[in-house]
């Protein structure tokens, strides 16, 4: 049985239904991320778990207990907010001790737990500082410690890294994951940053229009996207129009080539048209590693991005985008050059609606 379960949750604000029949089962100790664009309902679902929004219909249980109508302070959740939300009138120690005092812990016990938490986030030397004396990263660490101190059943993270600069964001997300693993706490993380979600989650819920479009491991989501939205939202994607060849189940005509797909075609419309997708990294200018399909075209743009060089190439009516690993010896093609991009037919997959 799942530890945190959301069953057919619906949330309506006025006439606007923001969450439409959302289902999710999270196992104990799992790290699940809600990923999606702004307005997809990910934060609303998180706030329903926290109790700050009451579902219009549906049920939420934590450890088998129905908390759908329970007040936020009765749910035993810990929450970290995007804006840190540290109490400005309390120092670091006071902030972390707040939940423990409410739980009725004694002075010695509180002090020991706060020290433990400060050690966990590596800020033992800043216990006396006030929030305004801390950097953004330090404030968010304190917010994490504050949320974890009362030993909540579920940890909710609402875009906790969005307000931080890029370097801190990467190091802090690794810290969060490490602490989560260490404590084995069930965690729900909301983000619109796919790289963030990919790097720290056990499973990702890709949300679109108030629904979960796909729930799966990062690898599943990236390599086997089930919908066009998921495929387009997670990573960069090349989409090619194809036509299934008559009397066949796997053969399709794409860019003037006949390609044998790994799986039988299931999404072709009445006229046999379908969309095929391929990731930029599956394309290469060399034909090695079983890349059995070649697309000839003209280089449209070459963008240097540090570790990789992104090339866009016109192939008939379509544009293919792919990456080359950068190296000092590499001579990338120039704009206007004729080039051939190779891809393995097994790396091409169909897109459903």
């Amino acid at each position: 049985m799942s530890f945190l379960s959301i069953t057919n949750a619906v949330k309506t604000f006025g006439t606007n239904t923001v969450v439409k029949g959302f289902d999710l089962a999270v196992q104990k100790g799992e790290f699940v991320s809600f990923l999606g664009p702004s307005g997809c309902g990910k934060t609303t679902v998180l706030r329903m778990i926290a109790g700050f929004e009451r579902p219009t219909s549906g049920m939420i249980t934590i450890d088998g207990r129905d908390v759908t109508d329970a007040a936020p302070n009765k749910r035993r959740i810990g929450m970290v907010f995007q804006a840190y939300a540290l109490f400005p009138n309390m120092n670091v120690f006071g902030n972390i001790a707040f939940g423990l005092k409410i739980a009725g812990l004694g002075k010695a016990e509180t002090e020991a737990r706060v020290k433990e938490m400060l050690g966990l986030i590596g800020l033992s030397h800043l216990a006396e500082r006030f929030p305004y004396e801390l950097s953004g990263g330090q404030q968010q660490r304190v917010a994490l410690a504050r949320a974890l101190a009362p030993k909540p059943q579920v940890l909710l993270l609402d875009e906790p890294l969005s307000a931080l600069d890029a370097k801190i964001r990467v190091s802090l997300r690794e810290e969060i994951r490490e602490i989560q693993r260490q404590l084995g706490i069930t965690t729900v993380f909301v983000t619109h940053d796919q790289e963030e979600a990919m790097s720290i989650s056990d499973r990702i819920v890709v949300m679109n229009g108030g629904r979960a479009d796909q729930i799966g491991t990062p690898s599943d989501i990236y390599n086997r996207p089930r919908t066009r939205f998921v495929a387009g939202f997670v990573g960069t994607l090349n989409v090619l129009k194809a036509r299934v060849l008559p009397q066949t189940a796997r053969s399709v005509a794409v860019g003037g080539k006949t390609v044998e797909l790994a799986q039988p075609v299931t999404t072709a419309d009445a006229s046999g048209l379908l969309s095929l997708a391929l990731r930029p990294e599956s394309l290469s200018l060399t034909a090695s590693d079983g890349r059995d399909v070649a697309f000839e075209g003209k280089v449209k743009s070459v963008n240097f991005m540090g570790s990789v060089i992104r090339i866009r190439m016109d192939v008939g009516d379509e544009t293919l985008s792919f990456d080359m690993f950068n190296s000092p010896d590499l001579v990338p093609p120039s704009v206007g050059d004729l080039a051939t991009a190779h891809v393995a037919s097994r790396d091409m997959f169909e897109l459903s609606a």
Partner: protein
Amino acid sequence: MKTRFPLAAVLTALFAASFFIVPLIATFYFSLKMTRGELGFAAYASVFNSAAFLNTILYSTVASLIAILIGAIIIVPTAYWVRLKVPKLRPVVEFVSLLPLIVPPVVLVFGYIRLFGSNSWLPLTASTFGTDILLVVGYVVLSMPYMFRAVDNGMAAIDITTLTEAAESLGASRLRTITAVIFPNVRAAIISGAFLTFSISLGEFVLASLLNRPAFGPYLVQLGQDRAYEPAALAIMSFGFTWGCMVLMQLFATRKPGQRWLPRLFTRPAQRS
């Protein structure tokens, strides 16, 4: 690049300030001339030696403090609740809070007398205590625009919604959230509102006079009619008091949590290495 001295701006500022400073200096100078042929603080001594002064200032101080307390009890939870639960109603509440600036105190007090006169259903003016209550309520109403604005601005400065949610996620009840998180974080704003309320109600004349209460405002006016130098001394003292309140407001408003009231230099001897 060399910056030119803003002579025109300075002269304009000095000219404008002279309208304020010259009468003040003149009043102060006049207040020192009570004893013929010499300058001194005789007028001030006379004021402080007057039992009426001490009684009226004590009465007004107590009434003002009670008004501050009641105002804070009404306005802090209201401003909090409006911002947290019904933010769309904020303009309406703000408008209501500004009404005392539109309705003249004389209208307000006649309304009170009519509503709570000795022949009314609640004859508050029939007793001294009842009239005191009316006076305090009047002070609360008169200070509402200032108290509400100060508290509301204080709440705007902190994200009360997120702070409330953070406290609740840690298990705090709504009452605990208000007392342990919200109240301490808008304390500076409440204190600013309190000082404004105090300044307004301490010298208030219309309500106190028409309700016939022994407050400082009517005493000040009465003294102006009967004496020459003492009113000038009182005016300077009132001015000093108001400015004192403003300095305290600034101190409270700009002080951060955990910050010292005085520089370390004054509180601990500097350590020599």
